[in-house]
């Protein structure tokens, strides 16, 4: 039981009406791993996470969390998993302390008062413990939610966009905390739209239209798409970008400030690029996560259609 992966789900599917929202998603998160879950809006991240903690019943597939079956042992999973919802879901008409205290009671923590006091202390909210939660700013709500879902010291954290709306320094603190937890053997599945956060994860998965397109370590994800990328400088970037998009062999063009990132499956495209009118400078750069994700997002639709009968 101890050796089991933190999350091991196979072929999870979910449909709402006749829309297949999660399509045969399989993913594995090892103990002590921080696993980033990325994908465009509406791609099925939240739905997948809900299935993993027993809030939604999968229409297909099976899996285990912390060694417990997600269909039959949801009760055990809930005890050891901390789930932070995407939308703030604590009680706005309760004070900060009352919210934490309530959560502590639900988990039947043996030293409730101490746990709540410690959480307030760590949050730096001890002096505002009596403030009604509804009056907190968005970022503070987010931090409270995080503290509340970690109150019972879960073995696995499922965090659905935990840092949306949180300021950069609080975000940095948060990720440092996540790495400290991971070092203690706690596993984390975190969905995010931020590239810098994606880069701080041990492993990543990218989902679009309900399908898991890639998963693995950052380098693996980048390597999997076999893209070469160049940085172009030149005149009239808008026109240049349009021209590049029509150039055969170019997979994608992204504007990055005063330069363009051009990616291609053809490593020899550099010679073509160099002689294009308006191009001043071309240099080969390493393909980044962002290049890959933008590529995945824009081509997921095509893959999807090809895959359909």
């Amino acid at each position, binding site marked *: 039981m101890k050796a089991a992966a933190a999350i091991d789900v196979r072929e999870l599917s979910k449909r709402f009406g006749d829309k297949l929202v999660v399509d045969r998603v399989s993913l594995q998160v090892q103990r002590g791993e921080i696993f980033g879950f990325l994908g465009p809006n509406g791609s099925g991240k939240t739905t997948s996470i809900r299935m993993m903690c027993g*809030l939604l019943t999968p229409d297909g597939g099976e899996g285990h969390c912390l060694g417990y079956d997600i269909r039959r*042992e949801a009760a055990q999973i*809930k005890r050891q998993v901390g789930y932070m*919802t995407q939308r703030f879901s604590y009680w706005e008409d309760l004070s900060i302390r009352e919210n934490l205290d309530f959560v502590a009671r*639900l*988990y*039947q923590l043996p030293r409730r008062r101490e746990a709540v006091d410690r959480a307030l202390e760590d949050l730096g909210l001890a002096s505002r413990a009596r403030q009604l939660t509804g009056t907190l700013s968005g970022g503070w709500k987010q931090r409270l939610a995080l503290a509340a879902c970690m109150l019972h010291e879960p073995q696995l954290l499922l965090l659905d966009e935990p840092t949306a709306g949180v300021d950069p320094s609080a975000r940095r603190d948060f990720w440092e905390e996540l790495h400290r937890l991971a070092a203690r053997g706690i596993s984390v599945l975190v969905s995010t739209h931020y590239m810098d956060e994606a880069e701080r994860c041990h492993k990543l998965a990218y989902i679009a239209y309900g399908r898991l397109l890639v998963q693995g370590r950052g380098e693996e994800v980048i390597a999997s798409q076999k893209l070469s990328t160049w940085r172009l400088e030149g005149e009239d970037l808008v026109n240049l970008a349009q021209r590049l998009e029509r150039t055969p062999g170019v997979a994608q063009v992204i504007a990055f400030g005063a330069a363009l990132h051009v990616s291609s499956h053809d490593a020899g495209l550099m010679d073509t690029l160099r002689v294009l009118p308006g191009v001043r400078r071309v240099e080969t750069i390493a393909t980044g996560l962002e290049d890959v994700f933008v590529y995945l997002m824009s081509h997921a639709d095509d893959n999807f259609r090809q895959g359909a009968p």
Partner: protein
Amino acid sequence: MSREWFSLARWWSIVLKEVLQLRRDRITLAMIVGIPLVQISLFGFAINNDPRHLPTAVIAADHSEITRSLIAGLQNSSYFEVTETLPDEAAGARALAQGRVQFVLNIPADFTVRLIRGERPAVLLEADATDPSATGNALSAASGILQGVIDKDFKGPLAALAGGAAPFEMRLHRLYNPEGITQYNIVPGLMGVILTLTLVLMTGLAITRERERGTMENLLATPVLPLEVMTGKILPYIVIGLIQTTIIMLAAHFMFRVPFVGSVLALYLAALLFIAASLTVGITLSSLAGNQLQAMQMTMFYFLPNILLSGFMFPFRGMPQWAQVLGSVLPLTHFNRLVRGIMLKGNGWVELWPDVWPILLFTVLVMGVALRFYRRTLD
């Protein structure tokens, strides 16, 4: 499904949270006390007034000493005030229909002659009983007046007539409202109406609110069982229901002097049963409703037939058969009878049972529906 047992500690934490939230919800708190007080004042005062000097028309086709003293007797009671004399029944019917008079006293042409012959003729007192509380007292006074006239006038040669059965009869016709609700009907009836309104609405809202604000997702992700959530959330409302019952009972007793001959314990037990029925309805509605607005609309949808068909608004026996059948399904119908039975008649277990089991059955059936639609997940 791995077994997971109901935990009292978790259940209690839900109760505490609900109480905390209720305490901050001033409007709901005001409703708990306000609804009974406002309703009882509005509805209740209508029953306590004892209207007198009600306009009365007389169709007297017979003029004799006896008919004159009959009319004078009515007049003297101060309930009736003869405002007009009409030529025939058609005119009387018109006066009633127009609402010009409350009563029409119709004395037939051969009344005195037949009276002396001992043929027990009848006088007809027609009443516009659309508002029974307006005519109830006057009508009950009418028979006393009848007796008074007999005692006073039937002396000398006619004394023999006064002895046995009444020498003439007074027929009462309550038009428009055949049953004529008793004056104590309304205050006890209000108890059920108020409990239905506040309990169905408040439990419905309390549960859909969690769903609407997204906090249900959070609750479901913790070890708390949905059953603990549901029952924990309704406990405070049971207490609220009992508080309302007490307010209404006190008001009935001190403000309206409604007699209370039965057992207080029986009344509280009946109220608990009815509260349970209302709460299961509230829970069921909340599992069908997606948001608070829908829960509110569904409550109204449930509330209206309860008010209209339970005998609270209209006398039950005055309703057509189909409406009576519908009405007998509703717990409020039976609760009204229970409360009236306990407060006014001092009924015991045997008399109450016929109205207890329908509420029990209703509660069990609705609970079945609630369990059927009861959501363990977010699906």
